């Protein structure tokens, strides 16, 4: 086990593509996305736009500690424009090795 960082981003689903691009650009190639999350933020009303199919998404990416700075730098402008939230925390990674042909 060794130290890693967890990046959590909550945003609207139409930004998903852009956020994943940001992650990729920052060298973070692993992520998990959950759709259809609802919420309330500083700016949006409760379940705002819920009907307009712009549902919330929650993105979770575990990455190296030194990638965090890049991720934040890339994601922040997006969140500034469209709203959303981003939080970073410490985790321990359980390393796994997988026997896949593509390795």
């Amino acid at each position, binding site marked *: 086990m060794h130290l890693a960082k967890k990046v959590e981003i909550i945003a609207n689903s139409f930004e998903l593509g852009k956020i994943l691009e940001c992650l990729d650009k920052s060298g973070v190639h692993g992520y998990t996305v959950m759709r259809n999350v609802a919420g309330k933020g500083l700016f949006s009303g409760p379940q705002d736009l819920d009907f307009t199919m*712009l549902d919330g998404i929650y993105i979770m990416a575990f990455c190296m500690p030194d990638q965090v700075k890049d991720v934040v730098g890339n994601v922040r402008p997006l969140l500034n424009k469209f709203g959303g939230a981003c939080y970073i925390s410490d985790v321990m990674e359980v390393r796994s090795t997988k026997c896949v042909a593509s390795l």
Partner: protein
Amino acid sequence: MDASLIISNFLNPPVLFFFLGMTAVLVKSDLEIPAPIPKLFSLYLLLAIGFKGGVELTKSGINQEVLFTLLAAMVMASLVPVYTYFILKIKLGVYDAAAIAATYGSISAVTFITASAFLTELGIDFDGFMVAALALMESPAIIVGLILVNLFTINDDREFAWSEVLREAFLNSSVFLLVGSLIIGALTGEHGEEVLAPFTQGLFYGVLTFFLLDMGIVAAKRIRELQKTGTFLISFAILIPILNAGLGILIARVIGMPQGDALLFSVLCASASYIAVPAAMRMTVPEANPSLYVSTALAVTFPFNIIVGIPLYLYGIELLWS
């Protein structure tokens, strides 16, 4: 006459289930149609109405009447956001005014579909190409709205890609599915109609009814937000549809549409978008307050049109045409 139309509209299952949905929210029942079932219904309705329109279009062919109607649709879709913008500017800022104007320039497919079900029940014919008008009127208002924002703000760093905006305007899922189904309907014609009939026609009315139950729930949930909206916007959300419908009826009379088509056209003019345009506005004009343009369209204009507007406009048409 007017009252009897309203009552006959009101006693339709779709409208009654719309009320039932609203009532569920008012009495705090936990009735809800969980996602993505409403999405399934709306995809179905777009597919079915588009397909039917396409089939009918093949039957009627493209003639002068069709061209005039589509032209009128384009004109109204571009004009409405312009004059509503200036009305809205009386009380609101540029961003909010432009976003709401775009919302009212565009259309609500469900209102159109409810009106078509109403006509079917009254035994009044309407033409398949009206679905093409429906498709045509969804997008222009988005473009006009953005042009308004660009004209009236000094915006050095508004850096959205127009290509993305155009895609959102013309290729969003509802326009795309509607137009696609229309083309497929036109290609497969009566043969296609026959094999799909139990699905696209048999279920149509039932699915609309079920969907309006959900729309009632959704609309009622928005009503609470209207407090923040203020009387100006609430009056706007009732009066502008009537004005737009009136204009639509006049144009329909001038170019000689039959009564059924005239009703559908006026309903298109009167209705406001609560899906495609809000999505586009949130993306391109994040400065505008979404609860303003969504709540007025969904919690005021939509119920108004479904319950009062449709029979009212038909009454007007019957007066003028007779």
